[in-house]
């Protein structure tokens, strides 16, 4: 669908927010008590922030929750049964104010969950999701979207993309059918575009992801991995805050005969992620696991699904307890 460009004034934006709140849940960024940015359901418009650089956790939780029940069961020998989860109960959700990097990650997640056979938990949630993205007028040293083929105002993954204007109003790009339905249901809130200047931050390109992908083809045995991963402590923080990481675990949890099977977030950085029952572990040391993380995102995924496993949001680097800065490492990789 061709993009429709509109103007939406700050007051109209508030009206739109309240209107959407009447029929859907809104997942929007607010500043928490400890100054961190977090996404919450249905905050009041006055609490929503338009000035955040990144939230601590990504927004993948709305389509890939940290715990997703797959079915419930009754374990009763010959009388055992399995009951499906009613996916029609998934509500309509508006993701409000997420930046282009976060929104582009939905494509990456789609390339995992909808590839080959369809994960209906994920696709149902995506179906019920409306994304009103927000271009970035601020960035910091951890941002590197421009190194992975994105921009502070990329439209990938958004249904409507808002961009701040110099006078405090917003340019609204209506990008998809879903976005267009919003326009059609409240046309009075959208006005014709003006010449007002847009405020978009600049993110310096740190490396070329194409170069990195080429280098990685022959870098499996390079000493780079050991040297650069010694300080990694092997937690799951980077994978869990990352909007494009989707590795998961499947577990059963019972109370007596009743229980549920669920899938939950997992990380290839954990030591026991690939441990065989026999005791053999193909990735025994952290350098192998660090290599897996980078290779998976920048070599295997582009090779398999033509989709990069990273959106340059910088959460992994800012959240890492030992400053494993991924952009720095990729820059170095490009030059090996």
């Amino acid at each position, binding site marked *: 669908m061709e993009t429709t460009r509109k103007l939406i004034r700050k007051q109209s934006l508030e009206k739109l927010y309240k209107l959407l709140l009447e029929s859907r849940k809104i997942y929007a960024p607010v500043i928490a008590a400890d100054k961190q940015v977090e996404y919450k359901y249905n905050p009041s418009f006055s609490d929503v922030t338009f000035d955040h650089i990144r939230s601590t956790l990504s927004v993948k939780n709305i389509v890939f929750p940290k715990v997703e029940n797959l079915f419930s069961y009754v374990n009763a020998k010959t009388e055992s049964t399995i009951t499906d989860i009613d996916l029609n109960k998934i509500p309509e959700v508006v993701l409000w104010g997420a930046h282009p990097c976060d929104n582009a990650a939905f494509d990456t997640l789609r390339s995992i969950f909808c590839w080959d056979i369809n994960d209906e938990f994920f696709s149902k949630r995506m179906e019920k999701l409306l994304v009103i993205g927000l271009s970035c007028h601020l960035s910091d040293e951890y941002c590197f979207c421009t190194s992975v083929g994105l921009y502070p105002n990329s439209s990938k993954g958004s249904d409507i993309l808002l961009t701040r204007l110099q006078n405090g109003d917003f340019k609204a790009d209506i990008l998809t059918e879903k976005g267009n339905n919003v326009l059609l249901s409240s046309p009075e809130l959208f006005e014709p575009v003006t010449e007002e200047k847009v405020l978009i931050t600049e993110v310096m390109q740190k490396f070329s992801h194409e170069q990195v992908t080429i280098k990685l083809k022959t870098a499996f045995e390079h000493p780079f991995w050991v040297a650069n991963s*010694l300080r990694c402590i*092997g937690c*799951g923080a980077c994978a869990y805050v990352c909007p494009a990481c989707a590795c998961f675990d499947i*577990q059963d949890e019972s109370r007596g005969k009743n229980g549920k099977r669920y899938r939950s*977030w997992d990380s290839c950085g954990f030591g026991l992620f690939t441990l065989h029952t026999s005791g053999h572990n193909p990735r025994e040391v*952290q350098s192998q696991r660090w290599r897996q993380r980078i290779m998976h995102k920048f070599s295997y995924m582009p090779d398999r699904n033509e989709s990069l496993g990273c959106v340059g949001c910088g959460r992994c680097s800012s*959240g890492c307890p*030992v*400053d494993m800065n991924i952009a720095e490492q990729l820059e170095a990789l490009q030059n090996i």
Partner: protein
Amino acid sequence: MNNLITRAKELLENNNVQVVVGYEAGPTGLARPAFITNPEKAEKLIYDDRCVQNLAVYLTKKEVKKFGKIAIIATLPVMRSIMMLISEQQITAENIVVLGISSEGNLLDIANMQVMQGFIEKSDLSNPAKYKDLLAELRKLTPEEKFAYWQKELSKCIKCYACRQACPMCYCTRCTVEVNQPQWIPVQANTYGSMEWHILRAMHLAGRCISCGECGRACPVGIPCHLLTMQLVDQVHNYFKVYAGTSDKMSSVLSTFEPNDKESFII
């Protein structure tokens, strides 16, 4: 930190140690752990206010032990961690050289464990001053208020285990949560499951925690889990009048029995 760099260079040049574990500055200005094997690279070592991470966590890592003998830059918490690791037989004193750093940031001459013990015993081993007020505040709450506080904080937990991985005392090759026969603590990150995890970890650290605060610092979502472990540091001190990490022969207070132990709570 010229003395530090000189000493590190010396140790590497004479092959007294095969690696120096210290801090270096990353490109964003943050301090990060450094593993120097080449004497020329010793110039990268720094020591200043940015250097807070407890480096003792690397002493139990296979990849680091593989280098051979290790020199480690050690502030008071790191020294205490080293004592604990030796007393729990995870590392041997012969395999490390301690490059002690005083609270003013000066290089100390730590020739052996006795000297280190002497330094530790002269230091203030109670919880760091910056946390004492917050701990006192929490203690004033009623049990219901405390539970509500922790419920709110721990609902943020995503079970990334950064707290566990950053802690030098959490060196178990298979943590309790990774045992599935039986699955003691459920894998998923829901509020009560996360509470079970944090309470379990705090209890496993009771009598062993040396108040470095790494667990709370490492948490990507800002849960102050170090307050749980530090509260137990105070509790253990109240009951047994000991702090952890003061001797390489000291066994964990909760796993030893002395004939003169207080029994007033059971008799």
